C-alpha cells in the first residue's frame, strides 16, 4: 500500500512537471564587463508571470553616438520553458512616447531556469527613457 502511494505520488509529480529540463550555465567567476546599471521601478499586474519570470538587471549604453540601448536580463524561475511577449516603448525628454517604426510585441521563449537578455535600440536620439512590457502568452 505504502509502495503504491509512493509510486502514485512520483507519477503525479512527473505528470505535473511534464518533461521539464533546465539549463546549466558556466561563466567567468569574476566578470570583466562593467555594465551601466539602471535603477528601475516595476509594476506587477500579472503576479503569475511575475513569479515565473524575474527581472535580474537593467543596463544601458549609447550606440551610434547618441542612441539609447537598453538591455534587460530575464530569468525563468521555473524548470519549464516559458514563452511570453515583450515590447519596448521609448520616451522623449518631454515625456512624450516616441513612435517606433519597427517597434511592437516580440516573442521570446526562455528554457527552464535560463537567464537571457532582451535588448532594444531607440531609433531616435530624442529617446531618454524606456518602458519594457512583458505579457504571458
Amino acid at each position: 500500500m505504502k509502495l503504491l502511494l509512493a509510486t502514485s505520488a512520483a507519477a503525479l509529480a512527473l505528470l505535473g512537471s511534464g518533461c521539464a529540463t533546465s539549463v546549466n550555465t558556466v561563466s567567468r567567476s569574476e566578470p570583466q564587463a562593467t555594465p551601466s546599471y539602471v535603477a528601475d521601478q516595476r509594476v506587477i499586474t500579472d503576479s503569475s508571470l511575475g513569479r515565473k519570470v524575474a527581472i535580474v538587471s537593467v543596463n544601458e549604453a549609447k550606440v551610434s553616438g547618441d542612441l539609447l540601448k537598453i538591455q534587460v536580463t530575464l530569468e525563468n524561475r521555473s524548470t519549464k520553458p516559458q514563452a511570453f511577449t515583450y515590447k519596448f516603448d521609448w520616451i522623449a525628454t518631454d515625456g512624450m512616447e516616441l513612435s517606433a517604426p519597427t517597434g511592437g510585441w516580440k516573442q521570446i521563449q526562455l528554457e527552464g531556469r535560463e537567464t537571457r537578455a532582451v535588448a532594444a535600440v531607440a531609433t531616435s536620439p530624442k529617446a531618454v527613457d524606456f518602458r519594457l512590457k512583458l505579457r504571458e502568452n
Partner: protein
Amino acid sequence: MKPKFAATLAAAALALLATGCATKNDAKYVDSQGPNTIVSLNSINIQDWNNAADKLVASLLESNVLERAPSLPAVMAVSRIRNNTQQQVDTDALTKKIRVALNKSGKIVTTTTLGADGKVEDAVAADSGAMQAFMAGEKQKTTLPYYTLSGKLLEDRVRSGSTQQTTYTFQLSLTTVKDGLAVWEDETQITKQGQRSSVGW
C-alpha cells in the same frame, strides 16, 4: 411567469453575458504591432517583417559603422533585395521599415532618385531635378550615395509527420560605394512551426 420559461430566459441571458455581443467570426480591428495578429506557416506575416526589420536596424546601429561616414546623415540607396522564397512578396515591406528607422535616427537619408536597374522610386523628383538644371543652364548635380543596401530573402521548409516548419532568413549588406566593401552584414531568421495557421502568438 411560468418557472420553465423563466429558467430558459435566465439561461439565455447568462449565455449572452458570457459570450458578449460579438460572434466569433465578426471582423474587428487588431493592433498591427500587437500579439493578436494571424500567424501563418506559408507566408511572411506582418509581424515577421516587423521583427526582422527591428533586429537588423538594431544590429546596424550597434555596429557604429554609420558614424564612419564623412558627414551625417549619410546618403544611402536601396539596391536589389533578391526574393528567393516561394512567395510573391514586396521587399519594400522590409526595406521601408529599415529606411524609416534609419531616417528617424538621423544617421541616414535615402535617395529616391537612384535605384537598381535604373528604376527610380521617385521619377518626378528625378525628372524635375534634370529639368531645373537644364532651365538654369547648369549641369545636373546628382547626390551620389555613400552607402547601398542590398540583401536576400530565403525560405526553408521541412515537415515531420503533420508538423510543418518554415524558416525565413532575411539577409542584408551595407556597402560603401567608394570601395565596394560591405562594411556591415547581418542576417536574422524567423522560424514558425505548427500544423495550421493561428490567431495570436
